[in-house]
């Protein structure tokens, strides 16, 4: 199918199937909204074949080129379809299993992701291992029955409250340190040894959680890659984070910017030359972001393009959040009696996290300097 017929087919399907109450829900800063409805939406997407567009056909995907995947995300965002609850399974764990999983693991886990019936969360970060992931302390050891026992704490775990499974990076060799002796374990969330506690963020809402493992059980076969090879698996996961879905994200950005521009026009802020300059720069830089993201997918890319794109979008989005409240003036300093926030206030507050999660700006700069520019390590 050519690109424009494909775009047409996505658009038609969304027009026919997207429930109106879900439009605009579940985006950044509102991941807690309408969870049950969005879980059902995942199943609708899955049964229509809209999950795993880029996965190989042999593994149940559709093997579509990146351009058509990008078109899907663009149309998805254009329609205002809700923030995905299944994106961690589809975009992180799935590709990790495709790269490192056994045949049996793929057979067991991929169909649930593709059908939109199995939700995943990612257990990497810990209280003492954020940017320095190799410092993690969660440990796993085989019990007398041969099954793994997992103990420790993870943090900033998106969607842990709805996830059926968590992929946990844990230390399986007690004598090891740093990036040696780690393993990637698949742990069922619905068991006595797993406790999820929501974290109240600066927005007053909770999208992230703490997850506690107290002798949580994982089956012997549920290790991705060899035991002890977890670091390589984790790096593989991190490298696919923020792939082609960035195109849908940018349409969301365009929608947010257009709301800020419209607010600036009605508040009169647009006639302030300093604010007009910032608004125009935001518009220019969004085009630049799109050009840069597209160039990251061409052959001959140097490998740090995802890091470059992350730095660009995170910083851009954060500045947009600042503009969103600046164009409103003092009215943006008041909110509802129970801390109900406007879209502008939520954007302003939530975007403080953009430059931290998924690899902070500082970590991205380290990677670009070392792997992109080849600067020597200290």
């Amino acid at each position: 199918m050519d690109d424009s017929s494909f775009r047409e087919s996505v658009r038609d399907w969304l027009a026919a199937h997207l429930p109106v109450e879900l439009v605009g829900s579940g985006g950044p800063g509102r991941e807690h909204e309408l969870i049950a409805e969005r879980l059902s939406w995942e199943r609708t997407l899955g049964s229509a074949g809209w999950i795993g567009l880029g996965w190989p056909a042999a593994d149940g995907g559709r093997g579509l080129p990146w351009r058509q995947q990008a078109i899907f995300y663009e149309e998805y965002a254009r329609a205002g379809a809700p923030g995905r609850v299944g994106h961690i399974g589809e975009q992180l764990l799935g590709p990790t299993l495709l790269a490192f999983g056994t045949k049996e693991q793929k057979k067991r886990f991929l169909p649930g992701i593709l059908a939109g019936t199995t939700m995943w969360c990612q257990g990497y970060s810990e209280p003492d291992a954020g940017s320095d992931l190799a410092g993690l302390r969660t440990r796993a050891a085989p019990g007398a029955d041969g099954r793994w026992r997992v103990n420790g704490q993870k943090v900033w775990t998106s969607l842990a409250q709805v996830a059926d499974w968590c992929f946990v990076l844990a230390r399986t060799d007690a004598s090891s340190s740093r990036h040696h002796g780690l393993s990637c374990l698949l742990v069922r969330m619905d068991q006595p040894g797993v406790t999820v506690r929501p974290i109240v963020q600066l927005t007053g809402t909770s999208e992230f959680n703490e997850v506690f493992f107290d002798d949580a059980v994982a089956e012997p076969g549920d290790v991705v890659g060899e035991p002890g090879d977890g670091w390589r698996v984790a790096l593989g996961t991190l490298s696919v984070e923020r792939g082609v879905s960035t195109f849908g994200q940018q349409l969301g950005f365009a929608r947010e910017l257009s709301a800020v521009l419209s607010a600036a026009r009605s508040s009169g802020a647009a006639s302030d030359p300093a604010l007009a300059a910032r608004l125009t720069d935001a518009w220019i830089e969004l085009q630049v972001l799109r050009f840069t993201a597209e160039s990251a997918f061409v052959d001959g890319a140097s490998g740090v393009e995802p890091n470059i794109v992350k730095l660009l979008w995170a910083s851009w989005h954060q500045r947009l959040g600042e503009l969103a409240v600046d164009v409103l003036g003092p009215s943006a300093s008041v909110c509802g009696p129970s801390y109900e926030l406007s879209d502008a206030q939520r954007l302003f507050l939530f975007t403080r996290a953009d430059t931290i999660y998924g690899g902070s700006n500082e970590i991205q700069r380290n990677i670009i300097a070392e792997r992109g520019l080849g600067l020597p390590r200290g």
Partner: protein
Amino acid sequence: MIVVDTPEQAALRAALRDLLGRGLGAGAPAGTLWKRMTGELGLTGLAVPESHGGAGAGLAEIAVAVSETGRVLAPVPYLSTALAGYVLGYGEADAGDAGAPGEFLRGIADGSVRAAFAFAGPVIPAGALTVCGGRVSGVASNVLDGACADLFVVACDDSLWVVWAGDARVTPAGTLDQTRPQATAEFSSAEAVPVTGVSAAMAADLFRVLLAVESAGAAAHCLDVTVEYLRTRSQFGRALGTFQALRHRCADLAVEVASATATASAAVAGAADPGVLGPLAKKYCADVFWHVAAEMIQLHGGIGCTWEHEAHRYLKRAKTTQLVLGSPAELRRLVAARAGLF
């Protein structure tokens, strides 16, 4: 829109980089590089129709050459001459035999004619250059590569005209950026030939697209040289490039260079309608070039402030590029107006 070199463009890039790497830049006998670029490689004729002695290629091929001449600040009037070939040839394709500028194209293609663009101001004020009965009058200052031009492509309100340099009064200016001379061109009822198919505004926007390409190429060179210096220069017993404060600054510059390169390529790909992309790309890429060139000096320390080191030439080119054909503030307003933001 994504742009990657076609095999032909990659070959062109390699051939030109090789030529420019052979010490034919600043300091070489005047004219040597120009002869090689035009005679040997036929670069000014890239976009000239084959019927007029050119290669019949397009702006994308010129852009490849401009990004390479930009990397080394080659002191040749390549950008304006090649663009004149494109602009005059563009009208030619539409006009067929009636296209009068055809007489200029053969000279542009073989390198015997050097061209410059005369714009009345950074964002073309109305009425500064006028045409009456096929004759052009008025003054254009800051004409890039104007001192050595054999012909001028003159923007009069919204039309383009070609005037031989012999019919203009040309006053060369001393320039901050010595790798690209400027002149003031004065026209007093000068005989002119109309250009069809390209408006004055479009010519200015295409010029901006190529300045963006050039800036991205030059900025990439500045970053390469700076990174290499930090890899090898040692202080406090270790390579400067091991200090995180400097590594992070280089990473930010790498983000800027990558985004400027992508933006310039997108502007070339969208050159059929350059009204927004032209000013947008020129503003963004010249700003990046300026920042990278300024950081190049700071990260080189004292040596970066010397006449001997190449850094100052890039700083001067970057600032000049920001100032001509629309300052960052002027272009920002132009983009906002053309994109209908307010």
